[in-house]
């Protein structure tokens, strides 16, 4: 077949069809049944391989957003610093700008004034982006859940991939959470981006009610607002 030396070009009328036929063949050419192919699986050939490769790259080299909120951020600093050194896992370089970061660790309590800002910072991060919730506050409001001003968890505002419980979680726990995130990313998993209970909306788009009427004089139609319906909070 085609591993044999082919006819001289001058004598050939259909060299291309010959190769092609050989490739399509009745059965697949066993030249292609390499170890590589076994590992990569079947079609579509380039795309999945590249994706997989990219996911692996992504998981192995993550830029964290330098984002401190509350007590948990102190333990987060310890996770970055000597002894725990998150960088050993390829994810320890905090970036000050959200535009350079792809993972956001949410280390603390989120309150009403801060949630719109956090949402904005999240929006500013380039896709694909991932979020790790650090500590009970970011998960559910934690010890402050009953507070009049406290959002019951970051998930009310942004999608979250990994939750690391604790108050605060030990640095080891955060490292574990980050490694888990890397695993998930390498497997191409991430949490779906869905509509969250608290979104930034234009003031003009809100349903009219007592509160909106009252504030109409203070807020422009185009201004973004976040509306908290505390009564519906978990």
């Amino acid at each position, binding site marked *: 077949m085609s591993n044999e030396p082919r006819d001289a070009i001058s004598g050939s009328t259909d060299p291309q069809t010959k190769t092609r036929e050989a490739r399509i063949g009745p059965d697949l050419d066993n030249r292609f049944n390499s170890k590589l192919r076994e590992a990569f699986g079947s079609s579509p050939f380039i795309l999945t391989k590249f994706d997989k490769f990219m996911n692996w790259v992504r998981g192995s080299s993550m830029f964290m957003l330098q984002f401190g909120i509350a007590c948990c951020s102190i333990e987060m600093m310890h996770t970055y610093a000597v002894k725990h050194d998150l960088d050993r896992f390829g994810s320890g370089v905090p970036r000050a700008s959200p535009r350079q970061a792809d993972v956001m660790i949410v280390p603390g309590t989120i309150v009403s004034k801060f*949630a719109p800002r956090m949402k904005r910072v999240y929006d500013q991060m380039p896709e694909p982006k991932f979020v790790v919730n650090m500590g009970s506050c970011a998960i559910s409001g934690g010890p402050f859940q009953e507070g009049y001003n406290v959002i019951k968890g970051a998930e009310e505002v942004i999608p979250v991939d990994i939750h690391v419980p604790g108050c605060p979680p030990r640095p080891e726990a955060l490292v574990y959470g980050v490694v888990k995130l890397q695993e998930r990313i390498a497997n191409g998993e991430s949490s779906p981006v869905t509509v969250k209970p608290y979104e930034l909306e234009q003031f003009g788009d809100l349903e009219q009610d007592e509160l909106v009427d009252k504030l109409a004089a203070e807020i422009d139609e185009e201004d973004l607002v976040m509306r908290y319906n505390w009564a519906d909070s978990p």
Partner: protein
Amino acid sequence: MSLQERQPVGVTEDGLDYDALADLLGDRVIGREHHLNAEGFVVRPTDVEETLELLRDEAGFDHLSCLTAQEYEDRYESIYHLTKYDDRTQELSVVVPADPEDPVSESAAGVYETANWHEREAYDLVGVDYDDHPDLRRILLPETWQGHPLANDYHQDRPQLVPFQEHKNPLEDDHHDAESDTMFLNIGPHHPATHGVLHLKTTLDGEQVADVDPDIGYLHRCEEQMAQQGTYRHQIMPYPDRWDYASAGLLNEWAYARVAEDLNDIEVPEYAQVIRTMGAELCRIAAHMLAVGTFALDIYGDFTAIFMYAMRDREKVQNILEDLTGQRMMFNYFRLGGVVWDLPEPREEFFEQTRDFLDDLPETLEEYHDLITNNEIFQKRVIDTGVLDPEDAKSYGCTGPVARASGIDYDLRRDDPYGYYDELDWDVITENGGDNYSRFLVRMQEVEQSARIIEQCVDLLEDWPEDERTIQSNVPRTLKPEPDTETYRAVEGAKGELGIYVRSDGTDKPGRFKIRSPCFSNLSALESMSEGEYVPDLVATLGSLDVILGEVDR
């Protein structure tokens, strides 16, 4: 006031003569109250400014430590807790009732700068309206918030709207104006140099700061409400750990322990006091190390050696504290009447570990001095920048290392002794520069002093006879102080005077629980320290103030 020649009114050999003070105020005093820490003078809401001015100028009350506002069934009330930088044990409360329908009360901002922010907070959370206040707007909650959360008729379930607006330049009508000379710059709330979620609305003239308005409240997590919902005995103690969370937990817990023990007349065994003192000073070292590390981070701009060194040393302290309390940061180790458990067994190992740390410390500090203190570039950045002169510091109610770096010799551990401090041998550190450098130096030296204290505590604990190791006194299971007992007590936290006001209402939970946070007052002085400075110096000043937003916002 420091140049006063006359003897302040009301000062006698053995403390304060309240009757003389009442005479000084004449018929402005319409009633007297008794608080556990001091007498309270009731004055009319229209006489506040005059009263406070007299007390400040004639009686030497130069420190407005705290302002508590609260709502009763039949009235609103603002309590000004006055004391003196020269003698912390001389205290006086000025109680100002206000009408329940229309709670207007004269502002004290003209007398004490610090009243400005405190009254804004009282307005925000309780709803008292301060007349003649220079700038009465909300401080912790967003401008558009409905209702005042610590007032009686507040419904937590009502929806709220929070806008996400562009901030306006306070100096220009429109900061997009092509003609304008100033530029508006937002620093924060998410910014690496703000140590958390602080927002500075800065107006620049060239590279100089023309105006800076700290916008706080991005971490206002209702600490006072949480404390008011908890029972005295066990449910409140975990929260103080989360105020100043730079591992200063035990220092904060002590603030609560002190006020609650005062309120309920609880004795603390001496052995427990020594353990408390040791733990608290370990916390102070950890907190100051964080301050040093992040300050260097602000100035040098990268996560490099100094930051890592500071973290390394914090790890050592945290290990010791973890052995002692079981937790790295949120210790919850104090109990009313003592501590929760004794030192870890085997005790020798614990002592050895602590001593090892203390033995290494001088060398470690030498390293810091080589890297930072003696570094010329560092000195160029911090000497003579962010200067806070002592008069301003007093007026803004600054305390702790910030005040001591401005030459104010004020430390509650010595001036209003608690725990075991007065039995031990240590010094209060002061510096006279008032600049960023001095604040840094004060912290470095305080670490040495804390080490001295810890060493003495370890010596004491080592020799403590085994059968006298009482870690807790007998405290009833439920504590119900007499209704309407009021007290205000403070301790020296890592950042300064950390005070708590509690009013009991006859139940096992406090009727009002107000936290006086040192960071809150220290931060309010930022404006006066940075106007006219360059932007990078503003960042350095902020770093040297060492604010922890959890404590600023509570």
